[in-house]
């Protein structure tokens, strides 16, 4: 157990290191000269050379990389030229907004997806079941930014029942949260449906029925408990995807989270902030994956080291 945890932890550290390396390569190798970027095209060659020297850009790439790793380890991504101040701090400022949105989306996914899946399992082959099946098939392929805009068009502009921009009130978060949740609703419902059907075919269900328990008790007490384990564990993965997808959805609803900050920074070539945002999202994503694996292990005693 300890060995497994240690191995997973080491893997995660390696992946985070990999993510930082990829971002470093993309940002330091492709864009050309950061000095020109900062000083603008009017700068004299002498000024540019001085700034390059000061920023350490004349050092070999590998030296820059090692120095950069040390900086990132201290959470020092540099200054934002656009916002002023520490890049990492400005990203952390936006973190609560993104987490709030992702939390709402997670709640919606659970509240709709779980009952939908149970219902589909009890009525296999019926309309509900087919809706779940199609939703899980197409949900993840939908262009979610467009779905978001259409939801605004229908519910905010035409019907006028929900606000079209997210201003922070719980009601205003319904549309963006639903847009985020939609691709995973069908997925979760499908998972619950298949899990439930699998459990229903097991011996303990037959035993429970044979001893005369009502169908409701068999379902709600015996089957439901066993269906919960996989659901609890996927929530971490879904949350990770929400944080990633929020990058685009926040832009649609003008929600001031990490995502809209990231896009603004990239468009304005404020790469210190962009890097801090991407690394933070990657760390979240990798960390949630780690948590899921560990949780899976703890929640289901049938899983042993051999099966992992």
């Amino acid at each position, binding site marked *: 157990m300890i060995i497994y945890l240690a191995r997973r932890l080491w893997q995660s550290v*390696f*992946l*985070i290191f*990999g*993510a930082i390396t*990829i*971002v470093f390569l*993309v*940002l330091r190798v*492709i*864009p050309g000269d950061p000095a020109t970027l900062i000083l603008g095209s009017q700068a004299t060659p002498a000024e540019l050379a001085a700034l390059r020297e000061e920023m350490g850009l004349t050092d070999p790439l590998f030296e820059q990389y090692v120095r950069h790793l040390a900086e990132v380890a201290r959470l020092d991504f540099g200054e934002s030229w656009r916002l002023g101040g520490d890049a990492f701090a400005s990203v952390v400022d936006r973190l609560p907004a993104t987490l709030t949105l992702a939390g709402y989306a997670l709640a919606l996914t659970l509240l709709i997806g779980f009952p939908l899946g149970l219902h589909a399992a009890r009525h296999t082959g019926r309309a509900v079941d087919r809706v779940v099946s199609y939703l899980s*098939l*197409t949900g*993840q*392929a*939908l*262009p979610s*930014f*467009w*779905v978001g*805009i*259409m939801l*605004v*068009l229908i519910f905010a*502009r035409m019907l006028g029942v929900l606000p*079209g921009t997210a201003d922070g009130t719980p009601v205003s978060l319904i549309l963006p949260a639903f847009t985020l949740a939609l*691709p995973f609703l069908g997925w979760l419902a499908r*998972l619950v449906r*298949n*899990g439930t059907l*699998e459990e229903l075919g097991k011996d303990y269900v037959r035993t429970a029925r044979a001893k005369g328990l009502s169908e409701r008790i068999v379902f709600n007490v015996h089957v439901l408990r066993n269906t919960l*384990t*996989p*659901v609890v*564990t*996927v929530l971490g*993965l879904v949350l*990770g*995807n929400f944080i*990633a*997808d929020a*990058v*685009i959805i926040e*832009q*649609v609803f003008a929600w001031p989270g990490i995502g809209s900050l*990231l*896009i603004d920074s*990239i*468009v304005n070539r404020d*790469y210190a902030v*962009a890097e801090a945002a*991407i690394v933070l*999202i*990657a760390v979240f*994503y*990798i960390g949630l*994956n780690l948590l*899921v*694996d560990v949780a*899976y292990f703890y929640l289901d005693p049938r899983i042993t080291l051999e099966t992992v």
Partner: protein
Amino acid sequence: MRSTAATIAGSVLALFVLVAVFGPLLVPYDNVTTRMADRLLPPGSTLSEGGFALLGTDQHGRDVLAQVVAGSRVSLLVAVTVVVVGGFVGLVLGLLAGYYGGWTDTVISRLGDMQLAFPSILLAILLAGVLGPSLTNVIIALAVTRWVIFARVVRGSALTTRNREFVDSARVMGASDVRIMARYILPSCVQPLLVAATVQVGLTMVAEAALSFLGLGVPIDQASWGSTIANGRDYLDSAWWIAAVPGLALTLVVICVGVLGDAARDDSDPAKSSGLGRKPLRRRKAGTPAAGSTAAETTGDSTQAVAR
């Protein structure tokens, strides 16, 4: 039922390809001329010069139909090029990793792990943003994020094939590594690769539209479904059709690609087609999709089986 759906999906896609290839000849898109008299006309309006705007006009009096047709060409071009380039790179690296194993496999697989450690759309956004808006750069950004998926599929097939008897026989006969890979290993990788490619075409289209929506995709003077949607977002109150039509086209095409991909997967799944499985299919444990398997990476059993 499935074959009917696949037939309809195939027809829609054939129509889409025809429109993308020949459409711009019939309905030329002019992004320069501004006709103030024809601004924001609803679908079915007659233009001031006697023309007919089937899908309405935008804020500059430009025909929405012509924009959607021009956008279909960009969408198809990007999706096909990305899948061909990414697929080829993935095929070569996957073959090498699966056939040679050892450190070759370790390097290629770890590289893939690193890249999938954070959401692929983030990497695409970063790359596209740094490279600047152009058709080529969008293709580069998306191809870089896709090769891993193909490499994993091919590696998995190569791994299972390389120990089969006919490969041993070829080796005994003195065939070179290149010959074994090309003649004996490659054929077993083609079908899973094609299934993955079908799914990726749809996902790449959505990704291209998302990049263009964020202003990081194709340049302003080229019509993309994503940028038309972004443009229409500002006119939801007065001209909903600008945002609705290209998104509807995108959604329809992507769903059809998904239906076809699903049919292709069922065809290539021996357990479903003949009832005699060649090899036990490794189903993923319910609730533990592979690390990094976002919507974009879920390409079916073949990918999942090799993801770990």
